[in-house]
């Protein structure tokens, strides 16, 4: 299976890249402010949350706007990819019913699109780090393995949603609810470790991979601390496993998708 996967990735990676690029282009082609939206949207949301939680609820995290911005950036990537995955086969019916392609390629295209937006936001984060004069040290380099793990987990999970989304009609509703729950358990605008009472904070902070990866990211970039390396490695292994199982599931079943949609 692994060889087949490599072969398919090689064969379809150009397609996925071109498709993601064309999608990004078409997304902005008809809007007024064009690609500026990729910057404006996350910035606007950051302002809203900073206002609500920084001023109204009086949050005390240092560098609060950057804190929120990192959270939002990563969350948006995860959230959008998950939601799109559920209906992705149906939405691409026109292609899927005309030509064979490994169905997880559809997922990869979405990850490419959302990932590009995440990268734009990450560049803004860099700008903010300079603007707020955040003292950054070598630990910030942990951002790279954290992001890799994060993308892998997203891909693995999206494979499963893609598969079940074909067969279960109302999976969208359930996904919405579960995602909202994860949203609040991830601490986009608060620190899970500080706000949730012990011992639950450790449970949420370590067993929810999104919360863990997100807070690790903040720890290493904003506060110059070393993230939990063992746990990071564990989640990395887990995400690889998840991807493998997800891809295997799709390979096993993908040819019956067309019969259902």
């Amino acid at each position, binding site marked *: 299976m692994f060889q087949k996967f490599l072969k398919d990735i090689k064969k379809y990676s150009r397609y996925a890249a071109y498709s993601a690029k*064309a999608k990004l282009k078409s997304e902005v082609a008809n809007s007024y402010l064009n690609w500026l939206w990729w910057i404006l949207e996350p910035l606007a949301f950051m302002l809203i949350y900073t206002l609500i939680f920084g001023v109204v609820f009086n949050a005390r995290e240092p560098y609060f706007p950057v804190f929120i911005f990192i959270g939002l950036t990563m969350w948006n990537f995860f959230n959008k990819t998950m939601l799109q995955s559920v209906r992705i086969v149906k939405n691409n019916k026109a*292609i899927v019913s005309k030509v064979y392609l490994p169905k997880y390629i559809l997922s990869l295209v979405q990850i490419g699109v959302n990932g590009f937006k995440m990268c734009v936001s990450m560049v803004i984060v860099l700008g903010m780090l300079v603007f707020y004069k955040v003292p950054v040290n070598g630990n910030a380099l942990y951002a790279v393995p954290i992001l890799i793990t994060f993308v892998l987990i997203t891909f693995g999970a999206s494979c499963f949603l893609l598969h079940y989304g074909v067969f*279960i*009609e109302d999976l969208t509703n359930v996904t919405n609810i579960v995602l909202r729950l994860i949203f609040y358990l991830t601490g986009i605008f608060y620190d899970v470790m500080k706000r949730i009472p012990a011992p639950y904070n450790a449970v949420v902070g370590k067993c929810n991979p999104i919360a863990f990866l997100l807070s690790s990211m903040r720890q290493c970039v904003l506060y110059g601390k070393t993230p939990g390396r063992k746990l990071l490695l564990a989640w990395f292994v887990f995400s690889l496993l998840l991807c493998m199982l997800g891809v295997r599931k799709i390979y096993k079943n993908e040819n*019956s998708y067309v019969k259902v949609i």
Partner: protein
Amino acid sequence: MEERKAIEVTDLVISYKNFKKTSIKKSLLQFKRQKAENFVAVKGISFYVREGEILGIIGKNGSGKSTTLNALAGIFSPDSGVIDLKGHSVSLLSIGVGFQKEMTGRENIVLSGMLLGFSEAEVKAHEEEIIRFAELGDFIDMPVRTYSSGMYSKLAFSITAILETDIMLIDEVLSVGDQRFKKKSYKKMKSLISNKDRTVVIVSHNLNTLTELCDTVMWMHDGEIKKIGPPKEVLDEYVAYMDK
């Protein structure tokens, strides 16, 4: 000269079973598992197509023609049996080819071409030819959702007709567009089909088309092959059967 087979199908069975959509509400409310309906669309057929041969498939609606064609294109996997394409590239041409509605015609040409197994450069080399053949003019840089249905199928036809694959599977699309384009596409199709290196499988209800173009005709009935042989013989029998 030794005949080389381009497609070899052995004991092909395709069924639609167990794959009913479900919802969480349904599965909660029903304690008994729904009995899986097993509809066998293709019941163990075997046939082969020689290289350069043109095979026509005829049969009444729901006899498994399109299912067979989809299986040949690799979109359905056979439940049992083997489809051997001997390493040939294959493209399926049918009504309303898959376009991404938000993207421009030009981008869709490249995407479709890449899915057919061509590289970006190869597609780009044929791009102008495709655009010219499709007669879309300036619309080629507009999102496909703005196209009329005629333009849509003209573009679809042009892509498959000009990006040539070894095996072409054609599902009822010998007539797209207006009268003029119809003539043109028919002519193009004929010249494509009569290329000795190209293997073609056509599904059609048009008796004239089949008689004129095909070397062999296969008559499918309820998922089985009723008769396979020279066009005239098979079609006469088919017409007699249908008129009964």
